[in-house]
């Protein structure tokens, strides 16, 4: 039953990667910018709730609502101040600078502020669903894991329905594919960019809050999650949220199996080696070519 438990743990971790990959891919579809700070919003979610609840003594619900408000207001301000200047302003940035630089800088900025605000110890938001892990036969599932999976399914499903079946979803895709063509039919590309950015930041924060009881977060945890989510999104060519989701799940399960059977210490290293080898062997099939060539 070791295999079953490893796969369950892998699916839970993978669903986090998958959700972050979907967030990166959806926002990239709108704005053609890669959000390298999405994991940092998760870290802020977890550590801010912990700080408000444990240190400042707020009730848990108040801590969660305050945290989500802080994250959404911050993301909104970042968009209207930094991204608007960078993307829509007179001296607009283009190419690789626009694609990476601004969110990369944001990631460092959030990490720095988080270190000052929350310190460098491992913390976690309190568990939302207390109790021992649920056992079916020999399989064990942590309750937080079930919450994570439920959130991932809900968010993935909502995104899928929105993009596939609504005019707003199609407008979102059109914004990223041809901003000029989108403006012609009256699509406000800036508004889509802003709301998807704020929305994915809040989604990330919710995941941080739900997931942190399993792993525990430090101020640096965000970058690692971002990296893996980013990789999974890359496997979907950055533009295909569905593929990004599958890639995220695959990476999660692979990581768990390598940790369980190969080496707990070197599992991650071996995983990145396998991922790199896959890209080299089959770039077109994995959508990497479109990710690089745009």
């Amino acid at each position, binding site marked *: 039953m070791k295999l079953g438990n490893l796969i369950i743990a892998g699916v839970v971790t993978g669903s986090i990667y998958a959700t972050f990959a979907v967030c990166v891919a959806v926002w990239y579809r709108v704005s053609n910018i890669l959000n390298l700070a999405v994991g940092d919003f998760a870290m802020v979610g977890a550590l801010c709730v912990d700080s408000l609840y444990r240190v400042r003594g707020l009730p848990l619900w108040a801590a969660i609502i305050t945290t989500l408000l802080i994250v959404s207001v911050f993301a909104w301000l970042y968009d209207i101040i930094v991204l608007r200047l960078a993307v829509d302003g007179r001296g607009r940035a283009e190419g690789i600078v626009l694609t990476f630089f601004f969110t990369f800088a944001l990631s460092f900025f959030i990490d720095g502020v988080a270190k000052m605000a929350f310190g460098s110890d491992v913390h976690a938001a309190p568990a939302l669903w207390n109790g021992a892990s649920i056992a079916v036969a020999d399989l064990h599932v942590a309750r937080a894991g079930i919450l994570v999976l439920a959130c991932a399914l809900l968010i993935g499903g909502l995104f899928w329905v929105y993009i596939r079946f609504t005019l707003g979803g199609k407008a979102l895709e059109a914004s990223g594919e041809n901003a000029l063509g989108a403006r012609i*039919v009256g699509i406000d590309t800036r508004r889509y960019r802003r709301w998807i950015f704020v929305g994915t930041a809040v989604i990330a924060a919710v995941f941080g809050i739900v997931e942190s009881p399993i792993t525990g977060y430090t101020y640096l945890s965000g970058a690692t999650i971002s990296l893996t989510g980013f990789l999974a999104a890359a496997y979907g060519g950055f533009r295909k949220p569905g593929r990004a989701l599958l890639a995220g799940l695959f990476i999660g399960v692979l990581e768990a199996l390598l940790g369980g059977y190969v080496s707990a210490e070197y599992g991650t290293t071996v995983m990145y080696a396998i991922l790199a080898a896959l890209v080299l062997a089959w770039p077109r099939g994995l959508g990497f070519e479109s990710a690089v060539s745009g």
Partner: protein
Amino acid sequence: MDGLSRSDRGTRERRRGKTSRESVPEAERAPGVGARGEAERAVGERGLLSGHAGSTAGERGLLSGHAGSTALRVASLSVAYGNVTAVHDASFTVADGAACAITGPNGNGKSSILMGITGMVRRKGTVEVFGAAAPNGDVRWMARHGLTLVPERRQLYPDLSAWDNVILGCYTWTRSIATARNSAPFGRAIELFPELKPHLRQVAGTLSGGQQQMVAIARGLAANPKILAVDEPCLGLAEAVAQRVYEALAGIHADGTTLIIVEEAPKRALTLCSQRVEVRNGVTA
């Protein structure tokens, strides 16, 4: 379907109400088609307006006074890219229901006039659509007020299907995909090019140039425009396809939509258009 055609009629009636207030009293006004015929005769008598295009016609009230109402009024329009002035002091008016060709050699500012009017680039001067002053640099305002652009090089969404491309034209007036799908403008847009039907599920980027142009025009039509501005509709198309495109444009015009066509070669455009604005070195002649 019914609901939408009602709202469609509603917008057209509102438009009439608005424009009748600002032009000629209802009793003096000739009925729609007759008025347009009169305008065209007047324009015809003056030999197509080329030479002293629009501004003169506008000042004398040829197109705006007699022809029912003015769809588009452009006054002292200038467009510059940095230090380079592409359009200088262009003025003309287009009557409601008319077809106007903006012609001139390549690189003389025809497309820039259209870009300036629609707000794709910043401009100086004033642009009025059915009497309402258009804000500078706001393409969405134009789309919502009935002027839809079919731009040069089509500007489709290459990874979306042809069907998705067309239905996104409806975004100017609805956010509901069900309303859009069952609406008269969308039905009309889809029926416009029957030869496109087998390709509607195909990704737009993989269509041929002619098919892409058809999708772009259909998208423009799905926006339910009162004025359809088409920029170089036949650029790079085979003769047979170009003719097909013009047939479709003639059909759109016959349904009462005001047309503005930018063409380098005026010959084909003038088979359809009764008004011509000639552009030379960024100046309307």
